[in-house]
């Protein structure tokens, strides 16, 4: 496995285990490499659409579907609470974990609470809808807004 994949798995593994973003030393320890190598790998993982960093260049904002910061889309699976970057990623967390979970979010217009149980095969019947303003071609122009 090459360096970038080791760093990627370390980041994603930390999120999966804890629900929280890892600091570079935690990624380094988990990947078995140095912090400098971790920071070198970050821009390459960004180019592969696997990582979004804060402006400091070292704090993980997104490792999709996981969010490094609290959002309005929370997912509880087992004893762990995760934050998702968006509605799509809220369902992406149970999909990535291969575990059931409960999505807690809201209707953006009315504020009505959404509680959606998601099994390993997906959610049960639900009338709720997903809506995205940004066309697919532009998603990564400003992925935080998307």
């Amino acid at each position: 496995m090459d360096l970038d994949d080791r760093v990627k798995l370390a980041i994603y593994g930390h999120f999966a285990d804890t629900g929280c973003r890892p600091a570079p030393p935690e990624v380094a320890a988990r990947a078995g490499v140095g912090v400098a190598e971790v920071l070198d790998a970050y821009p390459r993982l960004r180019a592969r659409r696997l990582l979004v960093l804060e402006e400091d260049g070292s704090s993980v904002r997104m490792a999709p579907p996981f969010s490094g910061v609290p959002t309005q889309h929370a997912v509880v699976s087992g004893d762990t609470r995760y934050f998702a970057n968006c509605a799509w990623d809220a369902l992406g967390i149970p999909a990535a974990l291969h575990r059931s979970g409960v999505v807690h979010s809201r209707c953006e217009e009315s504020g009505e609470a959404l509680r959606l149980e998601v099994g390993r095969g997906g959610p049960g019947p639900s009338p709720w809808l997903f809506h995205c303003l940004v066309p697919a071609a532009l998603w990564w122009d400003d992925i935080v807004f998307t």
Partner: protein
Amino acid sequence: MLFFRSEERVREWCAVHGHPVRPLVSMDQLWTLAASWYATRLQAESHRPGPAEMRAIFAGLGLAGGFWEPRSDAFGSP
């Protein structure tokens, strides 16, 4: 990328904020999108779907039209 309780709520929100109403996606469709993107994300060989894969996934769900065209979603540039 947001949740809404109903189509009426989407239309109301778009009208208030001056946004266009985009294609509506059901929870079943969203699950397929999420699983297609992320089911292998915790594995070493995983990758985000590229444009050709995206087109196939969208087409399989009946999500057609220019909104879903990823042609300029270029890869390889930070």
